[in-house]
């Protein structure tokens, strides 16, 4: 495996100096990879992405242990705008657009990491090419957009930052499955054109496992399982809890279950 672009090592995140949300999280993302982070509500997925993108004062959150390295430089507890300019852009779970600005204004807000004008307008053209709907809605106030349009705008806004690493938090949240697969497809296409590296956070394993190269499963702030997409897809626990399939197909051998338990203990 090539040198990781992002490496997270034994990360611990504490909210309000008291609530431990992540513990001993380690993961690596190689350039060009799509890495998925799965987990149920409250597992700590958003916290992980927020830790990578940088906490803001009002979050009252801190990385208390461990490190995050991006292209070799340590960025844990860095300010969000610095991390963005270093090349990490986030599509947040909530508050993902500026509701009182128009679509066009939303896209002019980002301060690009490689800030040349020509680069910005090239990027904007790319965004409108892949999301033509946003072009039609240029003058619309973002607060009035539908969920799908808002998600497109959020992705477009993150892309306008000129990232190398794109973090996407719950693309599928509150969207119809057709729209989700449509946006996901566009995203994969854009990623190829811009040679982006991505981390996608999902509750819906079906959405994530369709596109990721490698995945991690979080539970109560710890990694309980990781592996490439095929391994995760075939894993009985994933099939049962995340894909909603019964594991009656006889594939659930005693050995894999034990391995899962063992993984659990390792990371815990």
């Amino acid at each position: 495996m090539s040198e990781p672009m992002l490496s997270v090592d034994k990360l611990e995140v504490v909210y309000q100096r008291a609530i431990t949300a992540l513990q001993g999280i380690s993961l690596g993302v190689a350039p060009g990879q799509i890495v998925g982070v799965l987990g149920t509500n409250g597992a700590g997925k958003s916290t992980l992405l927020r830790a990578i993108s940088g906490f803001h004062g009002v979050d009252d959150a801190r990385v208390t242990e461990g490190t995050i390295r991006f292209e070799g430089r340590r960025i844990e507890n860095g300010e969000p705008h610095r991390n963005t300019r270093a090349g990490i852009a986030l599509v947040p779970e909530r508050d993902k657009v500026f509701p009182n600005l128009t679509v066009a204004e939303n896209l002019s807000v980002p301060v690009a990491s490689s800030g040349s004008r020509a680069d910005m307008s090239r990027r904007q053209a790319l965004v409108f090419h892949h999301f033509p709907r946003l072009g039609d809605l240029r003058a619309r106030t973002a607060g009035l957009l539908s969920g799908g349009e808002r998600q497109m705008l959020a992705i477009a806004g993150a892309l306008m930052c000129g990232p190398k690493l794109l973090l996407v938090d719950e693309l599928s949240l509150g969207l119809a499955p057709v729209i989700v697969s449509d946006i996901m497809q566009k995203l994969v296409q854009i990623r190829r054109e811009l040679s982006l590296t991505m981390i996608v956070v999902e509750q819906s394993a079906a959405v994530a496992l369709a596109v990721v190269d490698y995945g991690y499963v979080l539970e109560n702030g710890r990694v309980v399982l990781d592996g490439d997409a095929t391994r995760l897809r075939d894993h009985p626990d994933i099939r049962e809890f995340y894909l909603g399939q019964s594991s009656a197909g006889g594939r659930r051998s005693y050995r894999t279950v034990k391995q899962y338990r063992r993984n659990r203990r390792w990371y815990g």
Partner: protein
Amino acid sequence: MQLAVNIAVLASIYALIACGYVLIYRVSRVLNLAHGELMMLAAYLLLTTASSFAGHPLFAISAAIGLSILVGAMVYLFLMRKMTGEMALAAVLATVALGVLLRGITVIVWSAQQQYPATALGLVNPSIALPGGARISLCGALLVACTAVAYGSLLAFLRFGRWGVRMRAAGQSPLLAAQRGINLHAIYAIAWSLSTFTGAMAGMLIALDSGLGQTMTIIGLKAFPAALVGGLDSLAGALAGSLIVAAAEVLLIHYVDPLLSEVVPFLVLIAMLVVRPWGLFGTREELDRV
């Protein structure tokens, strides 16, 4: 006719001061209760630069404006930076303390006497006759013009300027703005500088027009209702609020009792708070804050 001119001049004064309150509140949700004192400080700085650059009024004025912009940025960087965005109450209290401090400093440095920067600069302030028999002082006319230019350029900047749009974005959602690569400290420092800049213009013009003393902070305080009446986060609202407050003040002074002058803005404010607590432009501005 003279009444209309008086209203226009007073409304310009209030509006030029009020936009300072609005700018800072809108971008960082902090009420700057030291705005009147910062404005007064600018006028006193003009007094000092006037004696250092004798014979160059424009030079002295630009130096004083430059200094006050610097003061505004410093206030943010050294005092407000820690509090902005996190502790709203602490931030407001800090501005109150700053105001008291500035008042003390100006008395110690420049004494509490009424002073006249216009004489120090060697400027005259002739009264100009307007069609219709009304008269306006040169400084009054300048005030109206400055306010018009200030509002025109601020509105254009916020609407079309790249950094103006970013300021609006930061005001709406600081976290997302930071995640989009915007340095919030830079944005807040710009807001403080712009705010002290407009305040300084107001302070200097008032001082040139009618002299300078500790009472200037009261003018600053009286402009606060004007900003509040407009909804506090809308420039257009501040303009409308200033007109309302100024009109009420001038008319009541003229037809009822000159002693009312000090209380009228606050009467208007109270009436407003009873009828429309969110301010004149409050609700609509929730969706479209320009």
